[in-house]
């Protein structure tokens, strides 16, 4: 069997400490942060450097064994879900900050470096790495590149794609190459642009050159409470319409605030229906002038708290960024949804989501990047009370509502395994065929993170959990590979 041969070869090349073969040990890799999908891999490789990644990929290619790259396993769309009898290639031993170049304002790092560690390494030069996913102290830059991750401050500064200058990749046949380069503008096709956000289906990143920004001279943050999510949504629209570009505008509804307050003492009002966190940054004069406009535009707010100092601001953000996991304190199980609606339809979307939740008899907490309409409804349910299927249906319906309102299936968590089946709602057959052709140009054998992003009958007719035959399988139309 090819997996056995592959195992022997990788054991020889990476050493006993470089691979995982024990069944219990392998199971710790069976899912990422989206635990609804679990597949035990045949083997896990733990390469120590880019050369060993290339060795592992080349071996997989030679034995035609599918492989999946994995960073910190914090993904929320099942992007790092293993393939049965396939290989998981973990990048968690590639964690060196190779260079911080303060003059050209860029850093060269390995893929397993966490998002926040880049900023930590750059801090002594007054620089930082801007995109800030809420899991930034854990999630790795390699995963950020794969998902084109966003974060609270991407409203003003842009997503991961806007901050990557070059990536070193191992292509699915095992060859190593660099996409992008030091010059800010590269001639020819923008292959780096094509690569970022393809969810690990075009190759494995082994090095990243990121752009660094100067730490803003002044930062001011306020928390404004509102009587309804609609009032809060209107305030967001008013702020943007007034020409203010905040560094971030985040909204949390009451349920989300309850969860956050249980986890972090950030002083959010437990009784308010909704709270906005608004942050301005830039030169002092500009920030002060804009901050005055901002407080005026939040006229309907029932209370405004201004961050006293850096420590208070850090607490506010710590609370906001802990929200997803903190919901674990309110509900034994929950789905984290991720969709985008046009900002002007935020109020409408929230009303519809509340109605859908009431109809299903399931609570939905909302915490999201209001400035760019990126919703994160948290669908709370109990596995024990048998609510799984109802909650999952509600969660999917919410994502599809976003598309219906002219938005997107995903804002930043990716399509992965979770939303592959909803892709046809947003893209035509031609769109999907075009994407597949791009993918095939990089990975003609389909070995690199297969089964993600694109809908397949195998994936979309089945539910996670115990084996159930697909209807087409029962009818003898398709067969299991």
């Amino acid at each position, binding site marked *: 069997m090819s997996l056995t041969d592959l195992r022997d070869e990788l054991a020889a090349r990476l050493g006993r400490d470089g691979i995982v073969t024990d069944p219990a040990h392998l199971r*710790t890799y069976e899912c990422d942060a989206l635990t609804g999908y679990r597949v035990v891999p045949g083997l896990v490789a733990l390469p120590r450097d880019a050369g060993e990644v290339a060795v592992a990929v080349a071996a997989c290619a030679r034995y035609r064994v599918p492989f999946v790259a994995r960073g910190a396993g914090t993904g929320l769309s099942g992007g790092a879900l293993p393939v049965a009898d396939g290989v998981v290639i973990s990048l968690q031993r590639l964690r060196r900050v190779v260079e911080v170049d303060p003059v050209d304002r860029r850093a060269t790092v390995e893929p397993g470096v966490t998002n926040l560690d880049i900023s930590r390494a750059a801090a002594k030069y007054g620089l930082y790495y801007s995109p800030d996913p809420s899991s930034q102290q854990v999630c790795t830059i390699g995963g950020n590149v794969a998902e084109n991750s966003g974060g609270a401050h991407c409203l003003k500064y842009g997503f991961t794609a806007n901050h990557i200058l070059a990536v070193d990749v191992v292509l699915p046949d095992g060859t190593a190459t660099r996409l992008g380069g030091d010059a800010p503008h590269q001639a020819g096709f923008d292959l780096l642009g094509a690569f970022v956000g393809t969810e690990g289906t075009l190759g494995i990143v082994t090095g990243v050159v990121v752009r660094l920004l100067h730490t803003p001279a002044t930062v001011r943050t306020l928390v404004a409470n509102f009587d309804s999510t609609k009032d809060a949504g209107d305030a967001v629209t008013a702020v943007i319409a007034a020409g203010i570009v905040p560094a971030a505008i985040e909204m949390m509804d009451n349920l989300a605030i309850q969860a956050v307050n249980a986890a972090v003492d950030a002083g959010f009002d437990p009784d308010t229906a909704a709270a906005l966190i608004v942050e301005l940054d830039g030169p002092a004069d500009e920030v002060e002038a804009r901050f005055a406009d901002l407080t005026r535009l939040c006229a309907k707010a029932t209370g405004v708290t201004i961050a006293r100092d850096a420590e208070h601001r850090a607490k506010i953000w710590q609370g906001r960024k802990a929200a997803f996991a903190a919901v674990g304190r309110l509900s034994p199980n929950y789905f984290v949804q991720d969709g985008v609606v046009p900002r002007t339809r935020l109020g409408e979307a929230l009303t519809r989501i509340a109605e859908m939740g009431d109809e299903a008899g399931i609570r939905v907490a909302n915490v999201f990047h209001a400035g760019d309409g990126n919703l994160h409804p948290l669908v709370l349910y109990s596995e024990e009370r048998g609510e799984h299927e109802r909650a999952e249906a509600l969660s999917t319906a919410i994502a599809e509502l976003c598309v219906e309102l002219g938005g997107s299936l995903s804002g930043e968590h990716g399509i992965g395994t979770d939303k592959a089946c909803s892709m046809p709602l947003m893209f035509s057959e031609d769109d999907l065929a075009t994407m597949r052709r791009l993918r095939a140009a990089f990975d003609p054998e389909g070995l690199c993170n297969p089964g993600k992003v694109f809908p397949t009958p195998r994936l979309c007719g089945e539910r996670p959990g115990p084996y159930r035959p697909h209807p087409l399988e029962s009818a003898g139309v398709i067969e299991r590979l």
Partner: protein
Amino acid sequence: MAFDVDRALLDECVHCGFCLPTCPTYVVTGDEAESPRGRIYLMDLATRGEAPVAGPVAAHLDSCLGCLACVPACPSGVKYGALIESARPQLDREVPRDRLFRAAVFALFPYPGRLRAAALLGVLYQRLGLRWLTRRSGLLDRLPARVRALEGLLPPVRMKDLLSRTKATETAGPARTVALLTGCAQRVFFKPVNDATARVLAAEGCRVAVPKGQGCCGALSLHTGRDEEARAFARRTVDAFEGYGTVVVNVAGCGSVLKEYGELLRDDPRYAERAAAFAARVRDVSEVLAGLEPVARRHPLPLRVAYHDACHLANAQGITREPRDVLRTIPGVELVEVPEEKLCCGSAGVYNLLQPDTAERLGRRKAENLASARPDVIVTGNAGCLLQIRRYAGDGPLVMHPVELLDLSIRQTGP
């Protein structure tokens, strides 16, 4: 093989991964099974009967330092300490491993008398140049890793300290009485720390009692899954301190367990109530000092000082501010920032004896991080950390307990 961890505790983990970068073993291995999230996953599998406990599951749980750095990092409030403490006794019962070495360690360390005798041999070993000989002859390299780890940890002990005891102190005027836990290994290897603690507390206006009949507090046993043994030590400690007020501890690992006595003896009808009342009286020496208005005059010590947070002080007891505040009462002391300051030094009770490889990697990493801050003195409030850091920091900065530094300032002598 029966293995069962409370389902409700397991289910609190939502698998978000926020614990990963805080976990020392994950930081050095990059392996999911060496992270809190991975260990909870393994406990879950073993509880469901889907994975055998013996083998890799036991190995990955054994490699946990119990530093609890993952606890404050967890947004979902997972009680990792309760999880691992419930797993350890089961491992100890169900999975036979290093029986002889563990038995030897636990027949020695919790008993000051035996340890003192062993330490005397140790002093002879060092004095007679035997250490030099074993190192030079290459004999050391041929010893098993665990025995080598033990050899390397032997601190410099003075014969005088081995043969005397820390005395109770009296103070003039109305005084608050506190009772000092002198510990087991602490008493043998760190008598100067106990003496300094007593002097400083007296100088700050406390009457310091040293209750008779006290011994090991049970921390080493509890943190290695020997819960019955730990309970026996706990009962004796509760008895010894009956009738005293505040119990002062200068070892973080002991303090965190003393504060858990209520929980530990919960099911003992004779002791449950007294243990809970005892636990409520326990304070780390830094807590006591930070709560007192400085009385004794401090003489300046113009030093760069690196404070290392002992895991059982910072993570288990939430004490990070008090020791720093106390150090800042010394004029001239400059507290320097250390990279990765929250990462465990690898000592973790007897962990450095049972898992010498990981302990060594963490010890070296800690020493490098500390060295990068160029301190004159490294201070930390835990015996294990003192041994471990002293071993890897080499001949550079002095390594001492915070109260020792304060003692020097009050007595007007330089380090």
